[in-house]
């Protein structure tokens, strides 16, 4: 058994994106011993990818904006599946969190009065997104990173956490992981753990997420016995690049379609006219002539079908590809080159133009882009208490993308950055309150620790076995083709079976080389997480027999009012990991699912929706 380095702290925060950093800052401010653990270097987390801004009802541009309006926008965007209390706290506290960033050195773009400038975004009634050009996420993470460093938060970089450990009462008491550079194992005993591990996108073939987004936090929560909600709610962007490889997954902003870009299939046909649903027929143009008039003058014609809601566009692209009329690399063509002059394109879409030119040598003023639905964000996640972010496992907290409930079944752009700040802070507070309420020090079972280490090093022991990259590849293909943006019951059932096969294959992978910075081995240890979250999403998608927000069922195309009143809650029943520490990774087959009623919104908040109705 290799030696296991050990540390004793009060709070471990896993993940150093926006939520993790904010939680660590808060817990540190309470005088606790905080360890911030992250899988990459500090400051590289996926938060840097956020471009648009952070939504907060500051009212700097529209004084009539306030938290009630933001709350209502968020709930409606989430198709009312949100945890109302989270949405309320988020809308109420986001402005203070943004201003706080400024006190820590962030430099947002300014209004003429010298206040924070806010921009418009889809789904938000008022211009509400505090931003810095198109690199708001970078500003946010850098500000928090510098604040955390100044406050003396201890950071453990490039450390992959494998499992949470429990004490005899079932509370979280520690964790085991390994340093990626050396491959040596490390354990923490801790009174509380904050999960801030972000998303799960790496289980799909086309994703805007990085290699880190393997759903480690989601999976560790499941294995620890925590409840998960809404795992079927995954946001796909209809137009992510599928080719060239160098830009696969990079999103093509809706602005391209708004500025005249059209979708064509392999035959060159502008196919969106074939997919106008009756619900939108009245407001959508039914001929190219009419649609083309709209761009210059929005009152001259009805909207082009390319600008239908995201799910409709994605569904249409999906149908074209499945009918064999897709582009050579499995997408469709998004063509703005033949529609607008090169000069116009460069002027109106400068960052799109430069990004593709620089990264891919694709000149969007000359050639069409190959695009397709791309996995972007998971709304579902660990079920938490809104005020404290406490999960259903004592000592375990979750914030950011890994937590579920805040965004319901669909997230509005800009709400993720403010989510990180609001609930990152609350997680730090929640964990600190919890720690302060406990006496004595945490203790974990050495045997459980060793078991985790044994399981993690098993791929080195196997003489022969499969390449983990092959398993990952097949998992991504499975999720992309069967649990993608448009889902049907039969395909989902097929995916369940394939996932079980993949789980068996993942248990038998072999890796070459040593443990030092070995990406093959790192991937082998990520596979259980990816399989677990994939299973949750697939299972949730089977049970939610309706279409709502980010979850679209071809066989149940409409929302179902009854299902709109429940969360699908998934868990590994007690007796698995919850008691007695880690006893092997629970099989994905042991995950159960039950519908549970949504928390009931108080009347005064409900009234916000009623008053809007008239």
């Amino acid at each position, binding site marked *: 058994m290799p030696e296991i380095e*050990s*540390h004793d702290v009060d709070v471990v925060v896993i993940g150093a994106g926006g939520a993790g950093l904010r939680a660590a800052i808060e817990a540190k401010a309470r005088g606790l*011993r905080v*360890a911030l653990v992250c899988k990459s270097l500090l400051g590289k987390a996926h938060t840097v990818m956020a471009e648009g801004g952070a939504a907060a009802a500051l009212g700097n541009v529209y004084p009539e904006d306030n938290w009630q309006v933001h709350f209502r926008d968020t709930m409606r965007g989430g198709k009312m599946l949100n945890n109302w209390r989270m949405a309320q706290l988020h809308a109420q506290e986001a402005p203070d969190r943004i201003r706080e960033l400024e006190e820590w050195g962030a430099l947002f773009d300014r209004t003429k009065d010298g206040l924070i400038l806010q921009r418009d975004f889809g789904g938000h009634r008022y211009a509400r997104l505090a931003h810095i050009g198109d690199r708001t996420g970078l500003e946010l993470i850098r500000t928090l990173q510098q604040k955390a460093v100044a406050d003396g938060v*201890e950071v453990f970089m490039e450390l992959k956490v494998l499992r949470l450990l429990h004490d005899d009462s079932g509370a979280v008491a520690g964790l085991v992981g390994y340093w990626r550079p050396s491959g040596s194992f490390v354990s923490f005993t801790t009174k509380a753990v904050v999960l801030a591990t972000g998303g799960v996108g790496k289980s799909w073939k086309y994703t805007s997420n990085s290699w880190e987004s393997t759903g480690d936090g989601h999976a560790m929560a499941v294995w620890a016995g925590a409840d998960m909600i809404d795992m079927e709610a995954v946001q796909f962007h209809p137009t992510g690049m599928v080719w060239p490889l160098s830009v696969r997954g990079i999103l093509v902003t809706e602005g391209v379609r708004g500025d005249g870009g059209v979708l064509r299939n392999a035959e060159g046909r502008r196919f969106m006219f074939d997919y106008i649903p009756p619900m939108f027929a009245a407001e959508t143009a039914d001929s190219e002539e009419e649609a083309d008039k709209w761009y210059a003058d929005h009152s001259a014609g009805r909207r082009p079908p390319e600008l239908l809601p995201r799910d409709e566009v994605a569904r249409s692209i999906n149908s074209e590809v499945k009918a064999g009329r897709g582009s050579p690399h499995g997408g469709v063509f998004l063509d703005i080159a033949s529609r607008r002059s090169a000069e116009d394109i460069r002027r109106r879409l400068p960052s799109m133009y430069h990004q593709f030119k620089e990264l891919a040598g694709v000149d969007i003023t000359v050639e069409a882009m190959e695009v397709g639905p791309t996995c972007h964000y998971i709304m579902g996640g660990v079920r938490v208490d809104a005020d404290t972010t406490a999960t259903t496992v004592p000592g375990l907290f979750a914030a950011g993308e890994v937590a579920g409930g805040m965004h319901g079944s669909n997230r509005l752009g800009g709400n993720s950055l403010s989510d990180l700040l609001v609930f990152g802070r609350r997680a730090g507070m929640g964990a600190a309150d919890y720690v302060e309420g406990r006496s004595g020090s945490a203790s974990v079972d050495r045997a459980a620790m060793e078991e985790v280490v044994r399981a993690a090093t098993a791929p080195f022991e196997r003489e022969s076995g499969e390449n983990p990259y092959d398993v990952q590849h097949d998992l991504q293909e499975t999720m992309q083709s069967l649990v993608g943006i448009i889902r049907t019951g039969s395909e989902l059932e097929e995916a369940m079976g394939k996932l079980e096969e993949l789980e068996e294959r993942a248990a038998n992978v072999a890796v070459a080389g040593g443990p030092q910075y070995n990406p093959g081995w790192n991937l082998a240890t990520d596979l259980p997480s990816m399989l677990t979250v994939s299973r949750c999403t697939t299972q949730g998608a089977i049970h939610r027999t309706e279409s709502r927000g980010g979850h679209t069922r071809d066989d149940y195309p409409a929302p179902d009012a009854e299902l709109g009143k429940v969360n699908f809650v998934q868990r590994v029943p007690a007796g698995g990991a919850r008691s007695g520490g880690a006893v092997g990774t629970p099989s994905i087959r042991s995950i159960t699912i039950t519908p549970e009623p949504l928390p009931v919104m108080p009347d005064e908040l409900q009234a916000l929706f009623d008053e809007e109705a008239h």
Partner: protein
Amino acid sequence: MTTLEDVSTTPVVLGGVRGGPPVPTLRKDRWWIQPVVTVTVLTAFVAYATWAAFVNKDYYVGATMHRDLISPFYSPCLTESCVPGSHPGTIITWWQISPALLILIFPLGFRLTCYYYRKAYYRSFWWAPPACAVADAHGSYKGESRFPLIMQNVHRYFFYAGLIFNVLLTIDAVMAFRQPGVGLGFSVGTAVLCVNACLLWLYSVSCHACRHICGGGLKKFSDHRIRHRIWKTLTPLNAHHMVFAWMSLVFVALTDVYVRLVASGTIHDYGFHF
């Protein structure tokens, strides 16, 4: 078991093995072209300027040729030895050798301490480093932290001095419109001196010290709108400081060459008068 308080990280041993490829550079492109060109041009300029400064003749085209053209190397000509007509009057009496040597200290100092030329000669002459990602040629390196290189910090005084010379050379260029004995006119020589003065102005105002003094040193632009506007105007010029540095350097030598050729009677300064 350690607690966070105990985490005293083991120091990284300096000078330790880094472990990468043990070669001075892995660059495959012709990175040496730039230093070679810099060395060639700068050496040629220094050689020419030294010769031109010591030769102490043919630097002024005067009334005998109906012109008033002075080489920038010799302006302002303030010593006794200056050619009649080339100077406003003898101010310095104790200087016995070429007046150019007295003058060239200032432009030379300005260029020697210039942020752009520093880059150019540190790279090409001193090889610290010869090119990016190519190992530098020195066992130890202290940069500009000690004498004599700490003197680079006087750049802004040479900048001020350079401004005085720019004014004088501008006056020379204006004077070059005079054609003694004929009236006002315009010749190739006039154009040469005008272009020379313009390039020198561009080199000066695009200087980093200038940009700092005019507004860059401010913390809050919104309290100093005019200085912000000046800074904003200078910034794009500053981006081309290297271009102006080379153009003005080459042209100042060409100006001297032209005046010299005319003064020595080798060529005629074509022009017209009003």
